């Protein structure tokens, strides 16, 4: 089963293009949807829910066309919007139970699952009190609970850590990660914070200005690279020149040289060159690629990366 399939999906608001010709297939898993604010993450999620109509192209969730079979799709999908969507006069129990019924659960099952799911997100006695008195962290938990209550096959989370303090952020991400790994619910987590995506997801979709930048397993973004970072106690230009003369692709930056190494013999070349120039080496470290590189125009090392 394909979890999500996009087929030349395009969305325009007047002359502004929110999504441009997005074609993509995603398998079930924990998928990070990353992009800066306004990149089109929310637009994509809202199209998947049938809340927005695409200008062109089609979108499928679990092999169902979201336009034609919207209610069927939505019965199997949980959604946590990026904004707070809770009426202050209801209690968490009332709201979540009502939402469960609106997803098609019979009344008794709705109540039972409401109790379970509120416990799962960590709301206990306070669940009977009106939501108006809740903290932001508690409100976000209620939002996650209403998205989970009908045991969806897919959870769409739009910036679920919005407005949370660092501890609340940790809790929420842990909860999301557990929900995805332990309960086998596929998750699409939209965030502009790369760190969050790195912590929770195992597949990544990057979009920028409505276009697909890349879609691949997270490991392929953050794995080890062949690049070694050499930091000196002096200007690195001379060492860089020597390494270039030795046939290594490199780039210097102040006191640092980034060298592309094909094998371990490269380390010897670096050592010998440093010794010949009589410069002190502060550290030699293998570079890890980070998600930020995705949005960096510059290649990691002298065009060789």
């Amino acid at each position, binding site marked *: 089963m394909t979890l999500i399939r996009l087929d030349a999906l395009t969305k325009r608001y007047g002359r502004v293009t929110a999504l441009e010709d997005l074609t993509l297939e995603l398998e079930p898993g924990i998928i990070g949807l990353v992009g800066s604010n306004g990149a089109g993450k929310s637009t994509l999620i809202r199209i998947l829910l049938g809340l927005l109509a695409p200008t062109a192209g089609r979108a499928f969730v679990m092999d169902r066309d979201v336009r034609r079979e919207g209610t069927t799709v939505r019965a199997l999908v949980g959604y946590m919007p990026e904004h707070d969507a809770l*009426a202050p006069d209801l209690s968490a129990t009332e709201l979540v139970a009502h939402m469960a019924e609106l997803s098609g659960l019979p009344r008794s099952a709705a109540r039972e699952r409401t109790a379970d*799911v509120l416990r799962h997100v960590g709301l206990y006695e306070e669940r009977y009190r009106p939501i108006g008195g809740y903290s932001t962290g508690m409100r976000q938990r209620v939002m996650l609970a209403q998205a989970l209550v009908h045991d969806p096959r897919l959870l769409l989370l739009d910036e679920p850590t919005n407005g949370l303090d660092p501890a609340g952020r940790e809790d929420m991400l842990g909860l999301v990660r557990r929900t995805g790994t*332990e309960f086998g619910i596929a998750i699409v987590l939209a965030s502009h914070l790369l760190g969050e995506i790195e912590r929770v997801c195992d597949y990544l979709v990057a979009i920028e200005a409505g276009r697909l930048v890349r879609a691949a397993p997270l490991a392929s973004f953050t794995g080890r690279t062949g690049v070694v970072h050499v930091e000196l106690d002096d200007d690195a230009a001379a060492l860089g020149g020597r390494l270039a003369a030795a046939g290594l692709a490199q780039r210097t930056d102040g006191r640092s040289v980034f060298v592309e190494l094909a094998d371990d013999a490269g380390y010897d070349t670096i050592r010998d060159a440093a010794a010949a120039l009589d410069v002190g080496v502060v550290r030699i470290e293998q570079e890890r690629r980070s998600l930020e590189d995705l949005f960096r125009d510059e290649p990691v090392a002298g065009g060789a990366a």
Partner: protein
Amino acid sequence: MTGPTVGEPLPADGGPGQVVAAGSAGGSIYDLGYRGYAGARLGRRHAVASLVRQSFRQCWGLGRPGRAKIVPIGLAALATIPAVVALGVAALARQLGAGEMMEAASPIRYESYYPLIANMVFLFAAAQAPELLARDMRHRVLALYFSRAIRREDYALGKLASIGLAMLLLVLFPQALIFVGRALIAADIPAAIADDLPTLPAIVGQALLTAALLGSLGLAIAAFTPRRAFATAAIFAVVIVPLVAVAAIDELTGGDLAGAASLLSPADILEGANDFFYGRGRAGPTGADLPSVTYVAAAAVMAVVAAGVLVVRYRRIEP
């Protein structure tokens, strides 16, 4: 730990949420954790029924703090008092042997009951239609509704059904009291019921038309603002301003203009429809004298247009 793959139903005990008996000598603590759901998914029809039930309760402030009940229950009480008083007086008169005389003199009858409580019904629509819609718009709860197993039209029409049912109850309850009361007071119960039975279609017809027209009109207006007070004022104005205007036009010019204007005034329309249901052929402002059936048609058209506006509004609204 990896869970079951997506797409396969989770085991009933939810895999990782296995029941862990952590207890020893005394009791046991069961950590049920998150569990999957393998039970029935009843889909859209059930979802809409649930929405209607919940909204109907909301119309009456049920399950809400006391202050939410004051307005709807208070208006219902005010609309019911005349029926109770009439029954009390009729019962007393019968005890005193003056039943026949009272029957003729009582101002409270089926045909005059709707005009008597019309203001309570307007107020109910003005107060409770915004109650049903404003909260979901203001706090952006619509995003949660529209991402579930219902369509946008279902939300709009479900809300309409719920306020329609509430207003039907508001209008029918007092008259049902009169119906039952008259039968119980009468010496010959079957005969009394037989007497009143032919009036039933008129009672129900007028109540249906009232609920449909004021319910859809109220919601169609309330759908355009998340501010409850604005919506209430607007609904009340839409009912009262034309009523006053028609009376003024009738006073000043008389004749056809007042008649035409009255077909755009919800209050006049419902009064005219009431005349139709109780067998008066002509109705409307004194100068106009239109066939009373015109008002039934006007009520139906206005209700359908208002319901259409409501649905279109919810199709376009940004959740």
